[in-house]
């Protein structure tokens, strides 16, 4: 996904809220957006999420599924939380049992299952926020945009949302978030986009030092440009170039999958590019996670395939040997 000199103003005579933003948002990147109140953070997030169109420039390559969590979600709809989520699951393209399963899973993970059958109007702010977060995560979106989504959540739900955001990035999704807590997702942000008050964005390296260092030293990262990205890099205005992500032949990616049934392992082994899927490791839920080694050129296809399988979750994707 890419932003090309994107600008936004709400009317021809209005000032530019956001201007001249050019950036790449490659798969798997977790981006923190920061700035003072009124600096245009929410507007930038809305343009990225496709909630409102850019007034100038172009947004291209937005992933198929986008989840957006607004900063406030007043329960003004005539549904219960579960009914609303089932509608949203269908809107996201999840039909029948797939939608029901996704709704139950996210209500459960965010601790909202007990209140899901009450009317949205009667729910507390925190509970409404959980419903709003659930609707965004239902389709395991390729682009997740969180506008102060943590506000009003209890501690357990904040943790669950942290986990969901990093999980999305690990599975190849792009995540953008704004939060007033400077410690939010500390150690996970690949980039920080700072809005300077004039509507322009300065792109700074994030605090995900291990990952950046790993990327810099990893031949799968590819280009010299990518290697140059690291904690030591200075601030840079405008575009972050991210040249071809397709690595040269012979490179291997390790994918850790949860929820692969034993019966599906042979099917996994027959996917093009899979070198080895015999290994397992202990997952955090105490279950055995399957470790699959894939030729880097085929990793996208393999991920796409297994994400379509029932119950399978991508726990991590890493260059071989990095784990």
């Amino acid at each position, binding site marked *: 996904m890419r932003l090309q000199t994107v600008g936004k103003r*709400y009317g021809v005579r209005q000032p530019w809220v956001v201007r001249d933003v050019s950036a790449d948002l490659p798969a798997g990147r977790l981006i923190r957006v920061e700035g003072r109140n009124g600096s245009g953070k929410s507007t930038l997030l809305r343009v990225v999420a496709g909630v409102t169109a850019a007034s100038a420039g172009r947004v291209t390559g937005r992933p198929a599924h986008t989840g957006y969590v607004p900063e406030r979600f007043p329960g003004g*709809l005539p549904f219960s939380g579960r009914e609303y989520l089932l509608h949203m699951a269908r809107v996201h393209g999840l039909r029948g049992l797939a939608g029901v399963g996704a709704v139950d899973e996210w209500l459960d993970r965010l601790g909202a299952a007990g209140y899901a059958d009450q009317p949205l109007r009667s729910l507390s702010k925190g509970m409404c926020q959980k419903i709003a977060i659930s609707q965004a995560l239902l389709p395991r979106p390729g682009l997740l945009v969180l506008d102060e989504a943590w506000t009003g959540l209890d501690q357990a739900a904040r943790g669950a949302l942290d986990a969901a955001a990093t999980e999305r990035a690990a599975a190849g999704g792009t995540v953008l978030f704004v939060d007033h807590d400077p410690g939010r997702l500390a150690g996970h942000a690949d980039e920080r986009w700072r809005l300077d008050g004039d509507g322009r964005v300065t792109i700074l390296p994030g605090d995900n030092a291990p990952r950046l260092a790993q990327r810099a030293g990893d031949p799968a990262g590819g280009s010299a440009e990518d290697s140059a990205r690291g904690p030591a890099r200075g601030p840079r205005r405008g575009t972050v170039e991210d040249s071809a992500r397709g690595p040269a032949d012979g490179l291997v990616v390790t994918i850790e999958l949860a929820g692969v049934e034993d019966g599906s392992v042979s099917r996994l082994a027959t996917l093009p590019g899979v070198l080895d899927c015999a290994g397992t490791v202990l997952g955090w839920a105490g279950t055995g996670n399957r470790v699959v080694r894939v030729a880097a050129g085929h990793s996208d296809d393999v991920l796409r395939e297994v994400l379509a399988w029932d119950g399978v979750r991508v726990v991590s994707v890493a260059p071989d040997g990095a784990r």
Partner: protein
Amino acid sequence: MSALLRYQAAILLRSHRWIFPLIAYGLLISVGAAGSSSLAETLDWSAAMLVPIVAFLTRAMLTAEPDAARACVAAAAGTVKAQLATLLVALGGGALLGLAGICFGLLTAEPPTTGTGPTDKLAAIAGHPGIVVAGLLTALVCLFVGSAVGALFNPPLLRHPGAAMLATLAAAVFGLASDVSPAGAALRFTSQTASPVAAHWPGSFPLVAAVCLVAVTWAASTYAASRRDTRSRAEG
């Protein structure tokens, strides 16, 4: 798209925003039926009343969803589809009302044939399909004009509630009274030839014009929706 239509239809049903248009339309066509002397007149009246009713039903749908919920749907499905689904559900609701109005007219109005004709009312009507077809097509034109008025003078194009409601009402009256409007033209034509046997459809011009009007106003509404200022407070 079907998921969006289902979502919007559920909002319409569950929010009870259909009750006011239904009651208002029922009252209007009852009053009209009492004052009409023929089937053609009754059908014209029930078609004409669709213009304001569908305009306000469209307004009801365009203002039903909170901004935050609309933003979530827009991210999930795109602003264009989301807006079209909203307008389509209002149009569908109006179509149901229009059909109910026509059925009401057929059941209550004086049969077009008197004296020597068959005594059974529906059989008498069946002998004059031209009146019914003209009534149906006039209702269709009025349905489209009502939808166009609702789309043009309500959010996101016209956001101030008072101005929007007054403009919607004024435009609906103008749409009925003026020959410039396809609805006005269609009604005037059938009224002039309301001799029961000779009632004919006035030609395709009003229908084509009404379809064009809907296309233009829906496109404008959708364009505005895709650039909507969804900020709920001063912070950008």
